[in-house]
């Protein structure tokens, strides 16, 4: 769930489930989110606890489509067996209401008329309109009659208040029908392959369609000529942001949003709706999650990678040599894949962590929490599951080991954080549970503990940051609320200052002992950060420190890694923010004048994770897009000129 108000931060993630594919999502009754899929169940999600709240069998085989009516009180689902079923959205769940007239052929798409009296449904070779009151259906279009040789699959449908039905089909057409007469009003062929998705703007004057070639097109309802009352749908803007099927599109009031099989979410602003240049006016692409999927055992030099259903533990390679900037050093020890932990069952992993000493690995799924003890004997490795882990409220949303590897912090629902004590040779016990003093319905999603084992900071879905005292197990203070999502936070090992990165790219430093923002933080807020810094795309996902140089803060997002040197002046907007290449060209004497606090390196992209191993050793984890692409099915071949 992306929060548009917080710079499109990916605020909530509900991990998947092998047997629950999601074919349709819809919001109903205010902020309730429903999903339906080929498992045949309609699922309601709990957005505070980030899990399935309840699930109801649709009793019609796999569900291909779902739509809520305009008031959000009824859900209609389209099933494999050709039935359209109505469910009532009631407090605490949904209730089966009735079946509408059933015909053969899976219902691939559904759309309610805004007056809630009729539902248009598309299936293979048929378009039907259901009368919600009587439940009767009426064939609006029979593609057999239209003498097409191949079957026509209606992939997506929209019912406008004017009575126009818009369909997109496997022949690459977007068609506009008059539902009462069943006549074709307009037909636009946009692609040689299927048009898979379609969304209408709230004003019903613009639509976006997504095709299987990765292209999206905007159609607008425009007057035939200036001042004329007669309006027609015109294909206005083509975009090619995806390489594969565009499976889902949405039309917000200011942007076209598309999501594709290529794992990208693209937000393309409509420039004519933009009043000024700003964050919203730029094209946004999201490929990677806005959270940390890699954890690092600094002392043991191990990396733990979290995949949807397994974990991989790697030992880093090493070198004996040193060199100049840009040189690649020969390895004296190759990196080693130590172990692969497969999660049992169909559930995806919520979170995972490896302890700094490398001897503990923990992960959690929706219903289970696992803790492993890893022992290294020479080149060999043995891994043992810790028996009898305390029964906790699951799932865990974030796991964090203390820096001495003596305890494990488990972020849990309703703002609570459990503290588990780790026992040699392989056990653990529940020590304490922190809860915010005023309570919170939201789950904790980020944790940070201090190096001295004194403090723990926890951020919940309500964006409040609570700091707990681990020595006397009590709530210490709350950081003043800031109206934006926290994307990363960490506690400085020397000063015990909490550094917080927000999704609007602001940085704050809060002194935990003094319970107030530090002078540097106030200075940053007064001067303001560099414009280029604030306009960056992706949120800071990890913060770490250099214990040898307390003025350094190390941060990274997907596209850059930055050493923030608090001892240097902040750059003003006229200065070059990314000035490393310029600095390298300068003689030593001239550099001094050009130095500023942000030392940014964009060499490694896309950067999934970066951490400091010791004072002169950093580990960076890149996830090349090409690697992802090779795992995707081949895109539809397109003829390009000159090839």
């Amino acid at each position, binding site marked *: 769930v992306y929060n548009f108000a917080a710079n499109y931060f990916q605020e909530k993630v509900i991990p998947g489930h092998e047997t629950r594919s999601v074919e349709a999502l819809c919001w109903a009754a205010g902020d309730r989110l429903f999903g339906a899929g080929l498992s045949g169940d309609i699922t309601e999600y709990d957005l505070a606890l980030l899990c399935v709240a309840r699930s109801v069998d649709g009793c019609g085989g796999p569900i291909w489509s779902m739509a809520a009516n305009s008031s959000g009180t009824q859900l209609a689902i389209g099933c494999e067996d050709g039935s359209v079923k109505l469910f009532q959205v009631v407090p605490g769940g949904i209730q089966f209401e009735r079946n509408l007239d059933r015909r053969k052929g899976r219902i691939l798409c559904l759309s309610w008329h805004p007056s809630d009296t009729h539902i248009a449904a598309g299936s293979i070779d048929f378009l039907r309109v259901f009368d919600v009151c009587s439940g009767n259906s009426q064939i609006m279009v029979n593609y057999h009659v239209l003498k097409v040789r191949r079957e026509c699959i209606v992939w997506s449908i929209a019912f406008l208040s004017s009575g126009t039905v818009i369909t997109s089909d496997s022949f690459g057409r977007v068609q506009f029908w008059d539902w009462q007469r069943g006549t074709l009003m307009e037909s636009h062929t946009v692609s040689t392959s299927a048009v898979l998705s379609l969304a209408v703007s709230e004003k019903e004057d613009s639509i976006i369609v997504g095709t299987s070639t990765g292209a999206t097109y905007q159609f607008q309802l425009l007057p035939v000529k200036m001042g004329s009352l007669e309006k027609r749908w015109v294909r206005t803007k083509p975009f090619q942001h995806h390489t594969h099927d565009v499976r889902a599109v949405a039309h917000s009031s200011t942007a076209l949003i598309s999501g594709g099989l290529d794992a990208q979410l693209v937000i393309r602003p409509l420039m004519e709706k933009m009043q000024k240049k700003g964050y919203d006016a730029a094209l946004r692409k999201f490929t990677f999650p806005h959270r940390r999927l890699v954890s690092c055992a600094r002392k043991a030099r191990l990396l733990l990678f979290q995949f949807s259903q397994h974990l991989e533990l790697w030992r880093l*390679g090493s070198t004996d040599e040193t060199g100049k*900037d*840009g040189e*690649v050093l020969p*390895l004296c020890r190759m990196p080693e894949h130590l172990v692969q932990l497969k999660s049992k069952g169909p559930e995806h992993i919520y979170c995972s962590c490896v302890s700094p000493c490398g001897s503990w690995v923990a992960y959690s799924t929706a219903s289970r929490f696992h803790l492993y003890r890893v022992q290294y004997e020479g080149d060999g490795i043995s891994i043992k599951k810790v028996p009898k882990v305390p029964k906790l409220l699951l799932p865990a949303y974030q796991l964090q080991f203390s820096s001495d590897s003596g305890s494990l912090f488990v972020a849990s629902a309703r703002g609570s954080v459990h503290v588990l004590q780790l026992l040699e040779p392989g056990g653990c016990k529940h020590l304490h549970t922190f809860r915010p003093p005023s309570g919170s319905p939201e789950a904790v999603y980020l944790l940070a503990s201090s190096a001295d084992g004194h403090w723990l900071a926890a951020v919940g879905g309500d964006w409040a940051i609570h700091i707990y005292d681990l020595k006397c197990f009590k709530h210490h203070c709350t950081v003043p609320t800031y109206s934006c999502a926290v994307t990363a936070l960490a506690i400085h090992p020397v000063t015990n200052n909490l550094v917080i990165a927000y999704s609007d790219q602001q940085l704050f430093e809060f002194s935990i002992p003094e319970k107030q923002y530090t002078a540097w933080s106030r200075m940053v807020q007064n001067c303001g950060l560099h414009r280029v810094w604030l306009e960056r795309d992706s949120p800071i996902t990890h913060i770490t420190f250099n214990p040898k140089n307390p003025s350094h803060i190390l941060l990274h997002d997907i596209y850059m890694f930055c050493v923030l040197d608090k001892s240097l002046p902040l750059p003003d907007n006229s200065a070059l923010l990314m000035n490393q290449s310029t600095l390298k060209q300068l003689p030593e*004497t*001239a550099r001094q004048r050009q130095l500023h606090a942000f*030392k940014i390196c964009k*060499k490694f992209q896309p950067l999934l994770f970066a951490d400091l191993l010791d004072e002169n050793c*950093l580990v960076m984890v890149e996830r090349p897009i090409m690697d992802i692409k090779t795992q995707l099915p081949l895109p539809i071949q397109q003829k390009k000129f000159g090839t």
Partner: protein
Amino acid sequence: KYLGFLAFTFMGLGIRFPYFNILIQIGCGYLAFAFCHEKNPKSVSDQKPLGCWSVKHGQIITCPVVCNFETHEYIAVHDDKVLRIWNNKDINLDKVFKATLSADVYRVHSLPNGGPVVLFKGGGVRTLDVLLEAPQQEIENIISDEVIKWSEAFMEGQQPVLIFTTEKDGDFFVYIQKLKMNSLHRYKLEQQELSKPLSFTAYIKNQIITLLCLYSSDSVYKVLIPLQQNTEEEEQILSKSLLLNLSVSGSVLKGTSFVVLDKDHVAVLGSLAASGEESKECLTIWNTKFQTLQTSKELPLGTSGQLWCYEEKFFFTHGKVLTVIMYKCETSSLAAAVGKLKDSQTPDVSSYVNWNTLGDEELVVSFQSQQSVALKSESKMTVSYNSTVLKPMPCTSELHSICCFQDASTTAFEDELRQLMSKAQMPDFQATIGCVITALINRCKTNPKYYPRNFLLQIVQTRDLSYSLCPDLMAVALEKKDVHLLQICLQRFPDIPEEITYACLKVFLSISEAYLQRIDVNLESVICYIDIEFNNKEVKTEIVENGFSAELEQDIWDTKITKETHLTCDGEFCPVGPQKAALLNAVLHSAYSETFLLPHLKNLPAQQAVLFLRYLYYLYVKCSEKINTTLPGIRSPTINQIMDWMCLLLDAQFTVMVMLPDAKELLSNLHKFVRAQVRFYSELNKIEGSLRELQRLNHQKDSQTYSIEVLELI
């Protein structure tokens, strides 16, 4: 005993705001009152009433009081027939000149050069002179039982023209009376079903009167009436065309009065009623060209429904307060109409005169920016006119006034401006700053000693100005040899004419290095590639060189040239000091068109041309040192700019250069270097394929799944 405003008349024609005098008529006729700004340049806010007159109890002033601009007398009519004429010195209205007329007066119109004209209710018109000769003369009734609704007078050439509209049984008629020719035309206004005109306004242009009518159907119609009509025809029917529909997205403006601002804008005072909502009174400006509502201002306290406009200011009553709002109409463009352009037509400043306190013989004046009104009405700054110290608030009228105070002391004046600059957040501030600079520059021109260097610098640095906004600024800076300001202007203005660019170049090249060293110039474009320490020595030799090139040491030139060229002509050392280099970089960075620049460059003195070429050569060599052929630093010139200027300079000066002995070596070195570069690149081209292969190999190495690299962050 305040009842409301009837009308007021402006008297200060020709005198600039805020020293205009307005004659305000308060109440239903039994109190007349003249209100003026004192002509005291010390403070704008020192306003006080100049005079106050009242008619006897029981008498009623029946038409707006006007001023005779020629004699500076006021003319009032009370009880329909009694004419009173007086001037500032008179105190008691009872004792002033009085003439009783034979017919009821509708209005008196005062024309700037034509003297007052009296329109009678029966449609008769007399000039005041004629009337005063025989007050009891008979006045004809030409409109029988029609009722005059509105009248207006103009000067067309030398003759006064009077237009008035009448109504009878729902029909409207327009009369045009040319006084000198004694011609009267009567027209009938085309009828409109279900709606009738509420308000009229008219203007005259090119012998055509344009009459605008505000109809009860919430539309403004335009009627054109040609003046050149000599034939006495039957009653003509005037056709009208729709100018503007006063509705915007569902809400309709019920207009009560309106004025024409310029050819594309009208202002309408009325109440805006959206369906289902309570109507709100507001002042609106409409663009007739694009049929859009340009801006509006809500008037929650209510108005009298009357709107006056004079010298780019609106006057209307808002609650019990006379409100003055300044406006500015820009040339209407589509961008402005659809709101993409920063809207600068918002009436942004209101001055209030609080009438409630007048009874105490004390005038309380408050000036405040509109923003503060919107935020907090109690935070009004109220200043009694007795107080001597007045703190000006940032408002456009203040700026205007300051511009007028050309004689104020420099420091006081700058302080005030600075204060305004720091506070102002107004949308049309840009344009205002343009005016301020123009005023400053005008002052600089008239007073050669006056030059607010730092202030100008500050404005140019902090505001996004352009050359066209303050065209004389750079000319004056050139005259004063203010190179820093010129540098900033070159960096910031997008539209400098080539002539000025050339003038800057010439000044920069001619100024001595010694002088420049004392001057603060922005060096950020050069510090990254010129080693300043070393160059200081180099500059000294440069001065020596300048010394003998000024025909003083002609004879030792030949002996020195070999040594000199070793140092400067191989492009290794910078031939100019860092300050001069920074200034030249600003020139290199500015936009130009070759065709327009070339003729000017031909006039560059030969020695300066050689020096400039030498600098360009130095930059070129410096660029070529780096693999990416870019110079480090902010705003440092690009290789394309350097090459373009080099070619341009050679084109312009080639014939001179080849004749000049000291340019010979330079040209030959330049030629050699360019040839070497060309060869180098052609060789590179040959091995391009191999290089690409190498790069590919390199990439393969990069995409290894694990590597340990050295990374240096400075």
